[in-house]
C-alpha cells in the first residue's frame, strides 16, 4: 500500500480547501454579512479538519477546528466581522498553509499555533482582539508541547466534542479493537480494507496507532479505532469480519461524557462547540454529495507529457520521410494516405501542446491576498481587478512568471498608488485600483499590470539614470518617453527615495526584466503623470517551442533564439576595427564587439573553406549590451522544440539546450546571454 499516494491526495485536497478559504475570506471582507460565503468557509474548514484528524495531523486539525468555531459564531451572529478579526483569520489560514506545506515537503505538520488558537478563541467568545495580543508575548513553545502530549495519551478536546455531540444526535460511539492473524502478510492492506468497511458505516474519529503508522505497518497485530456510527454493534463487527485474515473484532460502545468526566476540563467554551459540531456534520453530508460531480480532470505527471511530446516528434520526423518517399514513388493511394496522416498528426500536435497549458489563474489567485496585506502595511487603499484569469499558458512559463509579477505588483503599490490623503488632494478617489489583465494575441500571451497611481516621474528617472551612469547627458536628450520609462529596468536603478521593506531591496526591476527575457518575453512600460502606469508583459505561449535562426559553422548547425537577436548583417572584413585587442564593428553608430563562434566553439577547421571577403554577423543583445556573433552562413528561421542536453551535460558553456531538426539531426541552441561581453 502506497503511503505517499495516500498522502498526496491529502495534500492536493488540503491545498484546494486552503485556496477556497483564502478566496472566501477575501470575499467575506467585502461582504461581511453574506451567509453563503460564511457557509463555504465553514465547509472547507470542516472537511480540512476531518481529513487532517484522520491522517493524524493534530495541530492542523486543532487549528481548523477553532477556525470552524469562529465561523459558527459568525453564522449565528454572536460575533460580527471586523478588520482586526480578518487579520487573525488570514494569519490562521497562513498557519494552516504552512503546515500543509511542511507535510508536503516531508515534515510532520507540527507547528506552534497556540497563539493563533488563543486569538481565535478570543474572537469566538467575543473578546476584543487587542486584549489577546497583549498576551501574545507570554505564549511560548512550551505550551505547544503540552498540547501535543495530550494527543498521544488520549482523546483530545476536539475529538471528544465530536463524540459527545454525535451521541446527542442519536449516533453511537464505538471503540473497535481489531486483531489481525499472526500470519497475516499484508497488514497494511488489511488495515486499509477494514478502514474502507468502516468508512461506509460511519466516521472514524481516531485510530491508535495513527493512520500513518498503520500504513507503514508499524504495529503488532492489533489496532484500535474510535468510531461513530448509527449502525448496531453486531452489524459493524460482522462487516469487519468479512475482511479476511482477521483474528478477532471487539466492539464496545463508548461514552464520551464518562470519558470527559474523568478528564479535567478547562475549556469554558465547550458547550458552544458542541452545538457548532452538530451543524457542521449536517453540512458535511451535503458537501460530500456535491463534491463527486466537480472533478472531471485527471492529474498527469508533466514528465509523461514530455515523453509523449518526444514520441510525437519522432513521428513528425518519420512523417517527413514518408512524404518524401511518397513523392518519389508517385503512387496515388500512398500519397493520399500520407496526406491524411499529415493532417491527423498536426491535429495531434496541437492537442499535445494544449495539454501542457494551465490557466494563469493559478498565479493570479495569490495576488488579492498579497495586495490586501501590502495595502494594509502601507496604509493605502488598494483594490484589485482581475481580467482574463482563464487565459492559458504553458506550465513551465506559469512556474516562472509568478515572482516577476509579484515584484511588479509590489512596485505598483509601493511607488505607484499614493496614500489616500494624497489621492484626495489630486481629486482622485481614495481607493487606488490595480488592474491585472491577461489575454492571448497571436502566438503570445500578454499580461498587463495597470495602476491608477502617480505614474512615473520622467525627470526624476532621468536625473537618477544620469547620476548612476546608466545614460549620459547627450544620450538622454534623444530618448523618447517610453525609453525613459524603460530606464527604470536598467541594472543599478531604484527610484524609491527611502528603502522600504516592500521594494528597493537592491534587486530591482532589472531582475524582472531579465527573467521575462529569459522566458523569451518582453516587457514595456507606459505611464502618465498622476494617471497611472501600465507594465505590459509579452510572453510566448509555450517555452517548449521557440523561434530560432539556424546558422552554420563549417558543417555544424546551431540555433540562436530569435528573442535575443536584434538583426543580422553582412560586413566587409575591412570594416572590422580593433579596440583593446578586441575586434569590434561600428553598428549603426554603436561600437559592438565581435565574438567568433568558430573559435569559441572550437569548430574543427576545414581547409576547403576559403576566407570570405564578407562575414556574416548576428547582432544579439543582453539588456542594453550588444555583441556581434560571427558565423559562416545563415540558414533561416525555424520553429523548433527546445530540449535539454540531459543532466550529464547540464553545465555546458554557452549552450542552453538542443533541438532535433527535420532530418533527425541534433542542433545545439546557443545561449547568447553567455556570449554578450
Amino acid at each position: 500500500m502506497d503511503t505517499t499516494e495516500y498522502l498526496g491526495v491529502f495534500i492536493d485536497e488540503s491545498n484546494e480547501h486552503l485556496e477556497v478559504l483564502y478566496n472566501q475570506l477575501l470575499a467575506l471582507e467585502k461582504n461581511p454579512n453574506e451567509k453563503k460565503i460564511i457557509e463555504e468557509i465553514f465547509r472547507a474548514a470542516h472537511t480540512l479538519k476531518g481529513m487532517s484528524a484522520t491522517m493524524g495531523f493534530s495541530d492542523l486539525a486543532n487549528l481548523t477546528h477553532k477556525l470552524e468555531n469562529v465561523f459558527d459564531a459568525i453564522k449565528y451572529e454572536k460575533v460580527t466581522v471586523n478588520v482586526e478579526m480578518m487579520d487573525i483569520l488570514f494569519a490562521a489560514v497562513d498557519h494552516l498553509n504552512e503546515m500543509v506545506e511542511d507535510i508536503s515537503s516531508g515534515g510532520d505538520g507540527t507547528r506552534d499555533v497556540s497563539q493563533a488558537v488563543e486569538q481565535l478563541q478570543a474572537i469566538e467568545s467575543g473578546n476584543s482582539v487587542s486584549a489577546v495580543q497583549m498576551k501574545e508575548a507570554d505564549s511560548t513553545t512550551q505550551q505547544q508541547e503540552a498540547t501535543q502530549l495530550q494527543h498521544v495519551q488520549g482523546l483530545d478536546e476536539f475529538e471528544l466534542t465530536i463524540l459527545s455531540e454525535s451521541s446527542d444526535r442519536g449516533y453511537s460511539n464505538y471503540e473497535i479493537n481489531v486483531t489481525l492473524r499472526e500470519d497475516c502478510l499484508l497488514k497494511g492492506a488489511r488495515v486499509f480494507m477494514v478502514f474502507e468497511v468502516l468508512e461506509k458505516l460511519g466516521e472514524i474519529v481516531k485510530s491508535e496507532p495513527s493512520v500513518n503508522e498503520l500504513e507503514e505497518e508499524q504495529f503488532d497485530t492489533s489496532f484500535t479505532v474510535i468510531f461513530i456510527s448509527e449502525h448496531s454493534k453486531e452489524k459493524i463487527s460482522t462487516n469487519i469480519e468479512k475482511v479476511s485474515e482477521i483474528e478477532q473484532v471487539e466492539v464496545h460502545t463508548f461514552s464520551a461524557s464518562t470519558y470527559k468526566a474523568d478528564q479535567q476540563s478547562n475549556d469554558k467554551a465547550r458547550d458552544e462547540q458542541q452545538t457548532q459540531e452538530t451543524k457542521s456534520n449536517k453540512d458535511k453530508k451535503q458537501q460530500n454529495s456535491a463534491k463527486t460531480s466537480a472533478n472531471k480532470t485527471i492529474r498527469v505527471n508533466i514528465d509523461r507529457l514530455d515523453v509523449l511530446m518526444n514520441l510525437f516528434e519522432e513521428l513528425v520526423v518519420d512523417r517527413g520521410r514518408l512524404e518524401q518517399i511518397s513523392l518519389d514513388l508517385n503512387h496515388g493511394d500512398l500519397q493520399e494516405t500520407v496526406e491524411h496522416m499529415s493532417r491527423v498528426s498536426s491535429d495531434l500536435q496541437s492537442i499535445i501542446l494544449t495539454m501542457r497549458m494551465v490557466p494563469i489563474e493559478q498565479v493570479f489567485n495569490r495576488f488579492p491576498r498579497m495586495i490586501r496585506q501590502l495595502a494594509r502595511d502601507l496604509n493605502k487603499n488598494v483594490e484589485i481587478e482581475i481580467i482574463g484569469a482563464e487565459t492559458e499558458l504553458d506550465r513551465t512559463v506559469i512556474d516562472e512568471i509568478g515572482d516577476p509579477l509579484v515584484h511588479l505588483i509590489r512596485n505598483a503599490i509601493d511607488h505607484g498608488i499614493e496614500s489616500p490623503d494624497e489621492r484626495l488632494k489630486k481629486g482622485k478617489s481614495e481607493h487606488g485600483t490595480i488592474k491585472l489583465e491577461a489575454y492571448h494575441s497571436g502566438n503570445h500571451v500578454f499580461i498587463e499590470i495597470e495602476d491608477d497611481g502617480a505614474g512615473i516621474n520622467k525627470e526624476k528617472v532621468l536625473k537618477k539614470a544620469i547620476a548612476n551612469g546608466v545614460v549620459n547627458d547627450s544620450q538622454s536628450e534623444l530618448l523618447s518617453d517610453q525609453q525613459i520609462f524603460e530606464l527604470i529596468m536598467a541594472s543599478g536603478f531604484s527610484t524609491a527615495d527611502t528603502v522600504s521593506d516592500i521594494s528597493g531591496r537592491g534587486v530591482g526591476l532589472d531582475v524582472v526584466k531579465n527573467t521575462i527575457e529569459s522566458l523569451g518575453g518582453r516587457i514595456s512600460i507606459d505611464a502618465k503623470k498622476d494617471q497611472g502606469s501600465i507594465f505590459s508583459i509579452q510572453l510566448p505561449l509555450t517555452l517548449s517551442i521557440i523561434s530560432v535562426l539556424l546558422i552554420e559553422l563549417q558543417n555544424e548547425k546551431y540555433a540562436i533564439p530569435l528573442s535575443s537577436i536584434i538583426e543580422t548583417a553582412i560586413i566587409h572584413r575591412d570594416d572590422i576595427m580593433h579596440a583593446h585587442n578586441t575586434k569590434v564593428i561600428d553598428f549603426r553608430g554603436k561600437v559592438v564587439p565581435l565574438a567568433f563562434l568558430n573559435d569559441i566553439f572550437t569548430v574543427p577547421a576545414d581547409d576547403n573553406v576559403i576566407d570570405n571577403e564578407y562575414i556574416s554577423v548576428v547582432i544579439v543583445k543582453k539588456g542594453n549590451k550588444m555583441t556581434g556573433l560571427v558565423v559562416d552562413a545563415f540558414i533561416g528561421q525555424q520553429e523548433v522544440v527546445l530540449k535539454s542536453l540531459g543532466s550529464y551535460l547540464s553545465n555546458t558553456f554557452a549552450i542552453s539546450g538542443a533541438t532535433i531538426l527535420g532530418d533527425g539531426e541534433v542542433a545545439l541552441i546557443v545561449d547568447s546571454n553567455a556570449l554578450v561581453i
Partner: protein
Amino acid sequence: MENETLMNRKVIVFQLEDEEFAVSVQQVGSIEKMIPITRVPQTADFVKGVINLRGVVTPVIDLRLRFGMKETAFSDSTRIIIVFVDDMEVGLVVDAANDVIDIPENEIEPAPEVIGTVDADYIEGVAKLDDRLLILLNLQKVLTEDEIHELKSVEG
C-alpha cells in the same frame, strides 16, 4: 556452494581494444548502432556530443578516450550502449557489444592493485570465466561529474 552459485549477476559484455568490459544489465537501457553525433563544444575530450535517441537528446561519451585508450575510427561493429546512472542517461561508444552473460558473484574479485597507468577507481572488480577476463565497471565512477569538471577546468 550451491547457494553461492545461484547468486549470479547478469551483465552486458562489450569490447574496447582487446579487453572485455561488463556492465550490469539493470543499468543498460538499450544498445544502438552508430547514429550521427552532434559535437558539443567546450566539453571534455571524451564527450563525443549528443545524439537523437528517439526524440530524446542524449549525451554520448567515447569509452576509449575516457579510459585513456587510443581513439579509432568507428566501424560497423561500433555500438552505443545507453546506460542509466542516477538521473543521468548517457550513451557509451564501444568497439563492439559481445554478449549477455551471468557471472557468479563468487567469481568476482576486487581489482588488482597494479592495473597500469590509468587511474582505475572506476573498476569494480574482475571476473575470470573460463579463458575470458571481464572487467566490471562502476558506472557511477565512470560518469563522475567531479572528474568531468576537473577535465573542463584543465582545458579551460
